[in-house]
Structure formats: C-alpha cells, structure tokens
C-alpha cells in the first residue's frame, strides 16, 4: 500500500493534489465531474469582504501553451461565502482552503478574523498577495518583501489556522518575498500565481483583454514555477505548495522533486475538468512502478549540478 498523504505544516492532506483558487469556483461545477474524496483539497475562488463583479470582458486570451485571464476577483463576497458556499464546500470530503484577497490591511484582517476563527470550518487560509488583475491589494502588496512581511504580521495574530501565502512571480527576487513570508509567520508559501502578460489583436491594435493586461497560466509558466520553487526550497524552512502549469502526474513529481510538499492544479482543470482525479490516480501508479512507499519522500530531492 502506497502512502499518498502529505503534511503541509500542521495540516495533513489525503494526497498532494489540490484544486487551485480561481479555477474551480467553490466546487459546485466540478462536483459533476470528480469525486472530491480522491483529491487533497480545494482552494476557494479569491474572496473579498464585499462582492465584486470583476473586470469587464473580454477576459481571456489564448497564448502558446497557456492563457491570459483578467477576471479580477469576481466573487460573491465574504458574507455570502460563509452562508452559502462554505457549507457546501464542507460537504465535499476534502480539505477546504479559503483564498482571501483585499484592497487594504483592514480587508485582510477582517477576512482572517472571520474565516480563521477557531470555529470556522476552513482548514487553512491562503493569503492572496499575488492576483495581478486588481488595481489595489494583492500583487501590489506582494510585490515587495516589506509588503508581504507587513501584511502577514497584521493578520498572523488573528488566527491559529494554517496561513498559506500565495506569492507572485512578478518580482525581482522570489526568495526575498518568500523569506519575508516565513519571517512574518506564514505557515507555507504557495508558488506561483500567474505571470503578468499582454496579448494584442493586430487587426485593431488593441489588447485582447479589456483590462489590457492579464495573468498568464498554463504549461507556458511551468519552468518559471519549478525554478522559483527550487530556489526557495533551499532557503526556506516552511513548506512550499507548488502551482503553475501542472498538467500531469509527471509534472507533480517534478514539482515535488523541486521542493513542493503539495501542488495545486489550476488551468488544467479548465481544459479537462476531471484531470486532478486522474493525476491523483496516476501518482499512485507512479509510486508503485517506482517502488516508492511515501510520496512525501520526493520533496526536495533535486540534486543540482555543481557550478
């Protein structure tokens, strides 16, 4: 019997495969395609205190091996989430992670107080310091180590729940922001959110996206994620959750070797709704084929070339 379970800080997950925020809603639609008891967890759509309608469309552009999106955190808001979406998510028989975003420190604090309360049914909070599609908060906070540090400090004392910090790759030094997250008391870092990009319609000479720019996701960004995870793994003591272009079990293995303790599947679910369930099954087969007893043994086993 192979052991697919992984430990992310104090949170134990059935397996390392989670659904990434923003690519699975609150699980309602994917429930028609997958058995949630086959995956490690689900990260909610990015939440804000008040409901948001998001950015105007067009919000998507296809790119080589990926896509740009400029959704802009369209979500029903904290109250509706707590009343309606969270109770549903709790029925899914998998770990529930609330992805929280905001314009200001007060927003993040309020979300943390509510969703991170001792009696909240949420298993972990994922602090979104990386959405590139909003004018305030998120990536503007996560762009500097100081911003990351201050924000985590401002919410850390408000909850005992695991605090995951989802970081942006749109920085000069990912290790600097990741270390800031660790020093401020983050329980794990999630690497990486989307890369800021643009696509142009050459007929109109206008950006395809009405927001002009958007977040690039899909296999196109996988090498960037792998490199950043590998760099951070060597310096961090807290666990890393890997995300960015994972399409297969082999990709998950690669992420874990680079240093990830668990992974999130995002864009792949948009192409193949049941892909995360298949990946979890394929991981088991991989372990049997490679005589691995526990998948967690893979984490950080990368052997770099001497340079």
């Amino acid at each position: 019997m192979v052991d697919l379970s992984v430990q992310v800080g104090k949170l134990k997950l059935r397996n390392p495969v989670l659904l990434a925020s923003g690519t699975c809603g609150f699980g309602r639609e994917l429930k028609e395609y997958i058995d949630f008891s086959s995956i490690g967890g689900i990260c909610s759509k990015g939440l804000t205190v008040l409901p948001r309608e998001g950015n105007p469309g067009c919000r998507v552009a296809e790119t080589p091996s990926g896509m740009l999106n400029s959704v802009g955190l369209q979500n029903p808001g904290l109250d509706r989430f707590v009343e309606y979406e969270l109770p549903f998510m709790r029925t899914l028989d998998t770990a529930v992670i609330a992805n929280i975003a905001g314009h200001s420190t007060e927003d993040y604090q309020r979300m943390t107080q509510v969703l991170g309360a001792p009696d909240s049914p949420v298993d972990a909070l994922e602090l979104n310091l990386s959405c590139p599609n909003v004018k305030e908060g998120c990536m503007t906070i996560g762009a500097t180590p100081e911003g990351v540090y201050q924000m985590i400090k401002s919410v850390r004392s408000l909850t005992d729940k695991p605090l995951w910090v989802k970081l942006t790759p749109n920085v000069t030094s990912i290790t600097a922001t990741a270390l800031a997250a660790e020093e401020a008391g983050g329980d794990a870092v999630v690497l990486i959110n989307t890369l800021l990009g643009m696509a142009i319609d050459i007929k109109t000479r206008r950006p395809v996206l009405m927001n002009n720019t958007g977040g690039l996701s899909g296999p196109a960004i996988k090498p960037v994620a792998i490199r950043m995870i590998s760099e951070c793994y060597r310096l961090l003591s807290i666990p890393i959750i890997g995300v960015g272009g994972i399409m297969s079990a082999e990709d998950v293995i690669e992420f874990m070797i680079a240093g990830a303790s668990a992974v999130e599947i995002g864009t792949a679910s948009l192409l193949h709704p049941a892909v995360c369930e298949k990946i979890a099954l394929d991981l088991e087969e991989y372990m049997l084929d490679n005589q691995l007893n526990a998948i967690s043994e893979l984490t950080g086993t990368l052997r770099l070339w001497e340079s």
Partner: protein
Amino acid sequence: MNREYVAVLLEKKIVGKGNALLTFSGKEIAGKAEPGQFVNISCRYFLKRPFGVFAVDTKNNTFTIGVRETGKGTKDILSSRIGDTFLVLGPLGNGFDFANVQKIIAVGGGTGIFPLMFALEKAKSFGIPTIAVNGFRGKEDAFLLDDCESLAGKACFTSDAGDFGIHGNVLHALDTLTKEDTSGAAVFAVGPEIMMKKVSEWAAERGLSCQVSLERRMACGIGICLVCVCKVKAAEKGIPFTHVRCCKEGPVMNASEVIW
C-alpha cells in the same frame, strides 16, 4: 457524473463559403443536447472551442455542429479528417426555453442559423408553428436555405448585398410580417450582438418575449473560470448590473435581462 468524451469525426459537409457541418460520434451528447446548448471541442491549440449544437441523431448516436472559419482554432477543426478524434465536453449551458411557447419567430444572422435549425426541428416535432428569418451578407455567403425552408412553417431570407431574398437586414424582413404572424410569438435570435439587440428591441416594441444566444470568448465552458461573462440587469440586488457566465447561465438568455 459528467465526463469529457472522446468523439470521432464521422462526416464533414461543406455548406457555403467557409462553413461546414461536422458530425461526431457521441451517444451521451446526442441523448441529452437541447437546442441552444453547446459543446466545447478540442483542437490543436490550447483551449477548446465552443459550438452550438446543430442537430442530434439519437438513433445513430451522433451530434452535428456548424463551424465557420473565424480563426486558427476553427481553421484547424475544419481541416480535420474523417476518423480524427476530439475531446468534447457537453452538452453545456442553457438552451432555448420552450415552456409556454405557442409560436416561434427564429431570427438568425449568418452562422446563427446553425443552432436555430435545431430549435426549428424541435418546434416541428412539438407541432409549434415557426417562422424563420435569416440574414446573410450576400448570395455567396448564404447557406442551408433549402433545409431551413423545409423545416420552418414560413422562411424568409435577407441579404445585405440585395442579390437574393429581401434587400436589407433581418429587421426589414421582420417588418414585413403581419400582425397575425407575430401575435403571441416568442422570438429566438442568434447572430451578431448588434442584430440580437435590434431584434430584441423589435420584439419588446410588440410585446413579444425574446431569447437570445450570447457569444463570448470562453475557456472552460463549464462555469469555473469566469472569463466568459455577460452583463445582465440586477436592479433587484440594488446594483446597476451583475456579471453572469455565458457558458453556465447562458448562452441563451432572456433578452430583457441583457445589458447590451
């Protein structure tokens, strides 16, 4: 449980310039699809492409879509060969609502005729009288005229160029309809957004209900990515508008809810 299906291309029929009807194997889709619903089909590029269902054959377990070449994805799908396999999700979204519909005026612009043919067929099977109005740029761009004539109780065509049918757009044709034609009818419109807007205004002026099939750039097709949103009225929520998903709450919407 829903699944992503593997569908085999069984037949390709060219209909007019740059358009084809593609028939795929697909028992589940054939069995479930309703007029106005769509399927999301893989191509060699990253994202699937959405197409309204044109017809289903529940005896042979096939479904057919109409495809016009509008970009690299549709070009790729149109250049595929019989026997090629595709990954398909569907049927997706909400189709036309036939509840309490006594009579239908189906208004299509260009490729809008594809999903409307499925609606006309269903109406025929229900014994609902239909009038079809389809607009094209010109004779060269027109297609499925005979098929439409044989399905609809009454069919009329318009051309922008004036080289066949009524010279002008679908509104010119709609204005030729008698009171008797329009009385108590539900309008189904599929075509360019400006056409659907004008048709919905025409319907509203006559007190007729109108359903429109909206089109947006999509990714997942199943409601999880939120990229294909449409603006709809939300006065009851005390806000000027709300964004709903074209793939999930649409693509067919009540025109009176849409903010154009």
